[in-house]
């Protein structure tokens, strides 16, 4: 549909980035323990010769049991930062490409960002398997050139040994553990060519985790009590409340200022539907004028995490509470902990 911004509202200010970006530093980390083909074939009917012939692999590294993707990423990142000659507080985004961080939430990237002594930059994980690092470089390139980041840390890291079936003849010898990192930043010359990227979801089952997590629920249910030993999410509600309302809510003022608008220009406020009490306290704390409609979709929808802002915004549009072409201040925040606020023109 064709929608124009409402005539009486200011045009959003948008940043301008440098014309080009490039990779300023690279770093890598291989775990200490070397795993030879001799060790691998203890569990599969194969031989060193067969493995080398089929794969070219002579050895690989496995991380220690207590060594995490975040530990490995940190080591690689420190090398990349040193090579780039920057300090961690200059990093404005941390992207971690991984499919073996064993928590559904939070993402690994915010933890890495904290370990590195950055200044609390945007941080999130990318799930694009073996293409993840190249996806990350593409995103970093675009973020820098668009002016939304100065330096981006991109890490590709996997602890595949945690997810490899050592008895599977077809894959046991293939995988290893390690981390690689890059610092991407502004450049005087084109340093990253256009990314040609895509997907072939029709073949989704060619490389996959054998069972979805939810498939394990039945195995983890006690026959006697019916209790499920399942890693459900847990939340420290009071702490989250304080963090959301008092620590990070003021970023909405920064988002308004960055966009060149004031609360008087806003048509709606669409905060993440975390808890009505958070919404109420937040409005009070940031001093949002009482006449601006606020999304309260949580009453009928609950907290749907990443779905909550678009669900609430779509509802406000559909119910006529938000005008087409109007300005919405949207604000997401949650596990990580992470947050993002921006002003958008509604479709």
């Amino acid at each position, binding site marked *: 549909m064709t929608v124009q911004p409402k005539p009486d509202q200011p045009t959003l200010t948008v940043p301008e980035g440098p014309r080009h970006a490039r990779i300023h530093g690279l770093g890598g980390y291989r775990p200490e323990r070397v795993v030879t083909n001799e060790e691998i074939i203890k569990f599969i009917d194969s031989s060193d010769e067969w493995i080398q012939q089929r794969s070219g692999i002579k050895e690989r590294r496995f991380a220690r049991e207590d060594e995490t993707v975040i530990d490995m990423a940190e080591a690689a990142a420190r090398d990349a930062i040193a090579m780039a000659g920057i300090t961690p507080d200059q990093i404005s985004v941390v992207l971690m490409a991984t499919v073996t961080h064993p928590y559904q939430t939070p993402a690994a990237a915010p933890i890495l960002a904290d370990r590195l002594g950055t200044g609390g930059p945007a941080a999130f994980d990318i799930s694009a398997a073996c293409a993840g690092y190249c996806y990350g470089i593409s995103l970093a390139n675009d973020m820098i050139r668009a002016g939304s980041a100065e330096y981006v840390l991109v890490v590709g890291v996997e602890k595949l040994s945690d997810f490899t079936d050592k008895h599977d003849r077809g894959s046991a010898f293939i995988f290893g553990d390690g981390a690689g990192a890059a610092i991407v930043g502004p450049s005087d010359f084109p340093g990253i060519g256009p990314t040609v990227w895509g997907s072939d979801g029709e073949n989704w089952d060619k490389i996959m985790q054998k069972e979805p997590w939810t498939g394990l629920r039945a195995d983890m249910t006690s026959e006697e009590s019916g209790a499920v030993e399942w890693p459900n999410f847990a939340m420290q509600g009071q702490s989250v409340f*304080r963090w959301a309302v*008092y620590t990070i809510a003021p970023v909405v003022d920064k988002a308004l200022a960055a966009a060149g608008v004031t609360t008087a220009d806003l048509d709606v406020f669409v905060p993440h539907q975390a808890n009505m009490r958070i919404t109420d306290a937040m409005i009070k704390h940031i001093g949002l004028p009482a006449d601006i409609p606020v999304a309260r979709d949580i009453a009928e929808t609950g907290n749907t995490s990443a779905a909550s802002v678009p669900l609430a915004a779509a509802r406000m549009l559909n119910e006529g509470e938000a005008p087409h072409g109007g300005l919405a201040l949207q604000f997401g925040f949650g596990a990580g902990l992470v947050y993002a606020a921006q002003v958008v023109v509604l479709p």
Partner: protein
Amino acid sequence: MAMNEQEILAGLAEIVNEETGIEADAVQMDKSFQEDLDIDSLSMMQVVVNAEDKFGVRIPDDEVKNLTHVKDAVNFITNAQG
């Protein structure tokens, strides 16, 4: 300058009134925030954050659960003021 207990109690009562609408007079040293004043865990956080601003002290999340009664909060703030 550090406030005395009575001043802290009065300041706390003012915050409770602003945040919850409860009469400031009801906020007495022996009252329980939750049971007597009906201040739940989230409202308590609003009181805590405002108390930090007002009294210039830091009240960590982990400490909040120990502040069950008004006197606990007054004592904590008194000590934190040094």
